[in-house]
């Protein structure tokens, strides 16, 4: 549990196609197991591409993304396995993030089987423990993804990420699709995991309130660049960049009080 998990972005650029548009344009960023980072920005600001590179689903066109000093794009199978055990993602789209033909149990158990090499019985035990920890009935896991509610499915998505006990948890719009009442409960689960296991959190969302609730450091993205990166209070109350002021003001004006610092 004492090993560190550091992901370092150095001048990362990600462009698509020949002369196509540049989703991420010169980002440098460091996150580790002590981070509670919130990444905010409007849709199209490059957040999702950043996330995909952070978890190793995509690779930069220029610059490097390194995990504990090793470029993720150049990793050998064993290194990649260690990386996958350490960094996990809760994805945006819960409806399509589960194979419609396989049970939820199968999906949650799979990382243990592949990454930890556990047999089915042992993995099932660990799956049940994780599910109970998230307030899910293990019986539900025998259903197909469309046979549970959206909130339950999102908890299964979290369970799938947490079952390998990652050192760094990345959430990409993880609560955006949920009812406000469910959002709070899910956010608390995420926070509790990170507190109890000493894991880092990267929380990506276009919603400032939820992000400010879980993060103590805020990164603001705008048109593929990081325009602001600092402690939560500083970003919220003394923003340096014009775009950040617009973003914060927008939330103020809509009367969303949770935009201010929660207790």
């Amino acid at each position, binding site marked *: 549990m004492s090993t560190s998990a550091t992901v370092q972005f150095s001048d990362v650029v990600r462009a698509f196609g020949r002369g196509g548009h540049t989703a991420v344009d010169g980002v440098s960023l460091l996150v580790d197991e002590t981070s509670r980072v919130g990444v905010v920005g409007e849709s199209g600001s490059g957040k999702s591409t950043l996330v995909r590179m952070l978890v190793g*689903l995509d690779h930069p066109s220029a610059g490097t993304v390194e995990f504990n000093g090793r470029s993720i794009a150049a990793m050998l199978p064993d290194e990649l396995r260690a990386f*996958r055990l350490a960094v996990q993602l809760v*994805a945006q789209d819960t409806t399509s993030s589960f194979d419609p033909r396989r049970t939820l149990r199968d*999906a949650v158990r*799979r990382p243990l089987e592949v*990454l930890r090499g556990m047999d089915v019985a042992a993995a099932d035990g660990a799956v049940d423990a994780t599910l109970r920890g998230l307030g899910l009935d293990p019986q539900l896991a025998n259903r197909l*993804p*469309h046979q549970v509610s959206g909130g339950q499915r999102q908890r299964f998505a979290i369970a799938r990420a947490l079952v390998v006990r990652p050192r760094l948890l990345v959430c990409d719009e993880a609560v955006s699709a949920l009812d406000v009442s469910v959002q709070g409960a899910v956010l608390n689960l995420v926070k509790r995991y990170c507190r109890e296991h000493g894991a880092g959190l990267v929380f990506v969302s276009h919603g400032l309130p939820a992000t400010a609730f879980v993060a103590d450091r805020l990164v603001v993205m705008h048109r593929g660049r990081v325009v602001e990166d600092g402690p939560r209070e500083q970003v919220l109350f003394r923003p340096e960049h014009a775009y950040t002021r617009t973003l914060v003001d927008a939330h103020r004006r809509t009367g969303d009080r949770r935009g201010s610092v929660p207790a």
Partner: protein
Amino acid sequence: MTLSAPELATPTAGAPERPATAGPGRRWNAQAVLAVLPAGLLVVVAIVGPFVVPYPPRDVVAAPDLPPNAAHWFGTDSAGLDVFSRTVASTSNDLLIALLTAAVATVAGILIGLLVGMNEARRGPVGFLARGLSRTLDLAQAVPAIVVGLVLVGFFGASIPSLVAALAVVLTPNQGRLVRTEVLRVRGEAYLDAARLAGERPFRMVLRHVLPNSAWPALENATLVFGSAIVLTAGLGFLGVGLPPPTPEWGTMIAVGAPSAAAGRWWAALFPAIALAVSVFAMSALGRRLFRDG
């Protein structure tokens, strides 16, 4: 393409969600029996038929051109072979060829569709080859099936294996195209990302997730492929390049019966033609029952 896309597990607001798997859990009623019965009967005739026919189907058993009568229910053809015995005995040959063809074309189509769909967007020679194969699948539709079948049989002979191979070549491209389209859709699904995060190797991922989620259009279409294979087998037989006579086969029988029909003796061609049409109907009815509502 007449296939309707089944609902996938993409729940729309308020709509009740239903399983993505097509098939089991249907109600069985008179209509269902009506749809499955002809296909079942056909299989029974194909298996049992050759052993219970009244006359040996390959031998001259009576005077030529006898109209249907009590001894020869469907009459005899211009050579004096019993039309009823031959029509029944043909069932196993035509059905076997069509069944094997449908199986080979579907399996090959699924494999090709997977291969093309997974590699089409790649850079380098693999992607280039995959894109070439993809265009070839499109273009293969351009050349008439019976022409390709005719030439292949001409090259490779007219035994059951070579007929199956020739027809599979003709019918595989469409199956491949159907699967390719699905693979392209599945490739965008988030559960493939999830599998990658779970450490799944590419090959296992295709096996566990891409294959089961993209093969269904080819499986649905298999009954139609079966129908096409029967018609093409008979068509080649009709042209005189199918299974060599006196092997009983509907197309060959119709070819033999055609001059008789022109001379007013309808029976030698009519009965095999009916058998042919009934088999095609039976299989398409079965296909509709298995894969569609209603």
